[in-house]
């Protein structure tokens, strides 16, 4: 991008040819070009390739990189363009583009075995073919192993087909197939330019391909570590929020879960030491331990004791703070019995329907540090309009211009939301804390609120 032009909304990226074409059109034969003009042309090409690099560098996504490449190449360099990419992990050849740049399909490599396309892919050498008006469109057959795509290109006869190898990091990862119709042809310089563009594009495409593979691995691994979708138990309303310290991740060291069925549920909210991916892996283990423990013992104290034992035996220096709330809603949805236990976690706040805010009285040792720990339980009753709010230290330790957000600000905020739904309470707290941060970095933050259904 030149960057100095004002953005024209809706405009396509400037195609290469828009800049390349006039230099050739204005000056008849090449022999008449002065040294100065040759120099100017060379400068133009350098600028052009730099632009290709810049534009393609903006995207790490394979599909978007391909779309951008097409926008750069067409219509200036070619009337029709297709990209073939080899996929090492399968026997398929992915084809992109044609008339519709968003089109994609795949063919078996065996089908293209004896074609020019495969030759370019193997040899890494470009091939230029001329296709005459009549008879077989064998040049097109050779480069385009797909009926629909080939018939699009056939419509451009008499055509010239240029297959350019996309070689990056020592291997040829694909072929860019350019077609020019109506006898426009490709000059030697055109081929040279196409090869330079292809070289730049190849690196970008290969990076995007690598990134896509990593993304697939990461997203599969991450899926088990993401916050769960909450169930909708009869007689209860639940809401939760999570904001990761690492802004671009949806995972971190804070976690929550809901287990149970019918009229007996366990809400778990916790915080492992550390943040980012390492912490997220530990939350995965802690969550699994809780899930298993809950299978044998539904009491919060029992669940925490089991979690503590498991983490302690793992012999790591990691520890976890957790709050567990067993919630049993009444059949009419107007009240719920709650049993609480915590392992080194801040006690939840109870926002009564009348606006009073009560800190629950419950305490216990962090899980994973001492061998045998018994956790005491506290019982309370949620009435209609009451909300039990659980949170991690990322909330009250959020640092803004006036120091920590603190528990006092949290207690002062909540009375206005007495009787509100858990979703509203969580949203209000999250918003107040994030606004208080004023754009500063923060630790992982998690909130979980529970109230009766009516």
């Amino acid at each position: 991008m030149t960057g100095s032009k004002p953005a024209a909304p809706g405009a396509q990226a400037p195609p290469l040819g828009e800049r390349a074409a006039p230099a050739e059109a204005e000056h008849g034969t090449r022999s008449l070009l002065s040294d100065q003009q040759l120099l100017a042309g060379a400068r133009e090409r350098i600028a052009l390739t730099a632009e290709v690099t810049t534009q393609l560098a903006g995207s790490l996504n394979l599909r978007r990189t391909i779309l951008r490449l097409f926008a750069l190449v067409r219509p200036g360099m070619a009337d029709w363009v297709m990209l073939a990419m080899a996929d090492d992990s399968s026997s398929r050849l992915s084809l992109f583009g044609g008339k519709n740049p968003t089109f994609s399909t795949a063919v078996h490599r065996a089908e293209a075995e004896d074609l020019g396309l495969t030759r370019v892919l193997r040899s890494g050498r470009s091939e230029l073919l001329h296709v005459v008006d009549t008879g077989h469109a064998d040049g097109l057959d050779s480069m385009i192993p797909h009926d629909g795509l080939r018939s699009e290109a056939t419509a451009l006869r008499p055509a010239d087909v240029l297959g350019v190898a996309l070689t990056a990091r020592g291997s040829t990862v694909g072929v860019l197939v350019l077609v020019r119709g109506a006898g426009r042809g490709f000059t030697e310089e055109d081929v040279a330019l196409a090869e330079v563009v292809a070289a730049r594009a190849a690196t970008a495409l290969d990076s995007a391909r690598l990134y896509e593979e990593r993304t697939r691995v990461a997203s599969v691994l991450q899926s088990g570590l993401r916050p769960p979708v909450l169930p909708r138990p009869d007689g209860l309303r639940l809401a939760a929020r999570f904001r990761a310290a690492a802004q671009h991740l949806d995972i971190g060291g804070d976690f929550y879960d809901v287990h149970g069925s019918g009229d007996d549920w366990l809400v778990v909210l916790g915080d492992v030491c550390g943040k980012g991916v390492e912490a997220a892996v530990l939350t995965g283990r802690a969550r699994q331990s809780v899930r298993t423990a809950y299978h044998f013992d539904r009491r919060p104290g029992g669940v925490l004791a089991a979690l503590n034992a498991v983490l302690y035996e793992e012999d790591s220096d990691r520890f976890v703070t957790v709050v567990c709330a067993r919630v049993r809603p009444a059949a009419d949805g107007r009240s719920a019995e709650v049993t609480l236990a915590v392992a080194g976690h801040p006690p939840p706040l109870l926002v009564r329907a009348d606006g009073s805010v009560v800190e629950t009285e419950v305490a216990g040792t962090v899980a994973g540090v001492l061998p045998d720990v018994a956790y005491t339980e506290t019982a309370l009753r949620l009435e209609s309009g009451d909300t039990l709010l659980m949170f991690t230290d990322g909330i009250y330790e959020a640092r803004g211009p006036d120091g920590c957000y603190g528990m006092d600000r949290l207690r002062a905020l909540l009375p206005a939301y007495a009787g509100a739904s858990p979703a509203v309470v969580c949203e209000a707290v999250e918003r107040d804390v994030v606004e208080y941060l004023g754009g500063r970095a923060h630790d992982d933050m998690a909130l979980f609120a529970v109230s009766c259904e009516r």
Partner: protein
Amino acid sequence: MAEQSDQSDAVLDALGRFDGALASVDVDAAVAAVEGLLDDGVDPATVLVDVISSAQRIVGDRWQRGEWTVAEEHAATAVAVSATEAVARYARRVPATRGRVVVACAEREWHALPAMIVGTALRGAGWEVTLLGASTPPLRLSQYLQDLGPDATAVSCSVLGALPTTRRFIEASTSAGIPVVVGGSAFGVDGRRATALGATAWAASARDAVAVVAELPTVVPEAAPLPGPAVGEQAALELIHHRLFTGLRERWALAAQVVTTEQLPLDSVAAVAVDVVNQALHAVWSALLTGDPTTLSETAAWTAALLFARGVEPGLVDELGRLLAADLRDFPLARDLVDRHWTDGALTAGRP
């Protein structure tokens, strides 16, 4: 023709019931009102725009007139969210065949509902939609853009304070070649601010967004840089926002005590001061970035309406403009904008 008017009667009728459900925080009634329309074959986009969005505007007006507290507004909005989820359940029955759109709110934008409405409307029109929630950091948006490679980004911006972060979203999207459509009340009544910020397109409503997204180019160039001096002033103002805000609020509260001694209006001024002073400073940011000074006159008019509804001496609007201009003495572009455009709004609106 008769069918058309029958349907618009039904929509109006549902709007009335829906608004009642918001006021009484009755999720079941709100969901029933929208589901009734959908069952009768009314288009999801119509339900979203003419019922849910319309009712939400009424909610905003009630807060502005001092009839509702912020907590009441939030409770009503939560009911509207549940109703939108009900529409989304219908919209998901439409096969997704048209590609993917990432819908998001930039940082400082906490009104997640309009984005949800746009996302639901797009889903109902056959787009795969990935909805990122309120106040999303630009890094998170970029991560999603690179991971998903969508056909478009849609950004909803209701508050002026989120226009600078919306610009960062526009940069994130266009630098990946992805077209970006913007909308929401912060953009005003036409596409001028959207164009100035480098957006690919502007949508007037969720319904319009569906039409606009279908017409977007496949690839866009990176958004051009904004004018350097204005961007510099805005960045500096954002950096010292907390200090400016605190000082301005104190001085404005003092001014309020000078013009009135009665407790009730003074309490009202205190209650709206945080919003008003923030909005005034955000209007300056917006005017700098978009080059559109109507953000200032609109904010002055909005403040005048807010104060008028609470029986407060209207001269406080002009006073806020004077205090604001004085605080901006080190920022020539910003100060000039306030000097020339704040009073336009104070004079023209909110007065009987």
